[in-house]
């Protein structure tokens, strides 16, 4: 099954991105595919490579970059939400790209399921 994932909350403050990551990783392990993850609202804050969490904590952004590289996941950050919050191309971690909301709508149209993580 093809899963699209929508993340609506920023990292560390909220568990949404962690839960989405675990969902995506496990879905892929079970033979499903996750072609794209879309970051909206404060979820766009997951995309910046400027974050430096303590050594003994997970790095939410790096985890997404690694999973995306391993499994060809398209990590899309909403342009309007990103601009509002100061997220620019030059700040993006590997695997992330900035694009429009149409990419989110496409996930709903094309994939079997669209799963939202957030409040």
């Amino acid at each position, binding site marked *: 099954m093809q899963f699209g994932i*929508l993340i*609506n909350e920023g990292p560390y403050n909220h568990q949404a991105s962690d839960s989405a990551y675990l969902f995506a990783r496990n879905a892929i392990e079970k033979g499903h595919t996750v072609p794209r993850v879309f970051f*909206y*609202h404060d979820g766009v804050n997951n995309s910046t490579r400027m974050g430096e969490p303590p050594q003994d904590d997970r790095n939410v952004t790096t985890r997404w970059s690694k999973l995306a590289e391993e499994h060809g996941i398209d990590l899309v950050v909403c342009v*309007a*939400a990103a601009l509002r919050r100061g997220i620019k191309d030059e700040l993006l971690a590997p695997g992330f790209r900035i694009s*429009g*909301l*149409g990419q*989110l*709508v*496409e996930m*709903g*149209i*094309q994939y079997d399921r*669209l799963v*939202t993580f957030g*409040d």
Partner: protein
Amino acid sequence: MSDMDMEDDGSGIVKKFMFLNRKAPHGTVYALEGLEVVLITAAFDQDVSLVFTDDGVYQLMKGIDTKGIEVKDFSKTYRALDGYDIEKLYVDQSSLDARGLTEDDLIVDVTVLSDDEMKNLMDEQDVVISF
């Protein structure tokens, strides 16, 4: 609006999208940014339904005035939705009742549904996005 009408993912597929608006219009950004997704989805010629439930019913309240909190008042957008061919607006009776509201308190025409009717409407959808 003409630019948005050109949106097309090339598949020609039309799915039933339901947007579940659950939060008050102000205090968080969900309602404002959620509306953007609704408009884009309509521009992709999808079958869009909007539901206002829980504190989301406050998004449609008459007499919203944001001057005092110095944020944008986007409530006009709800009245312009029919211009985007978004005509399926639903509110659940229990959310109105719990807040002492009636249809007369709302700025747009909506269909008021019972919990069972809402459940059936949700069952019919292909995609449910909740803000």
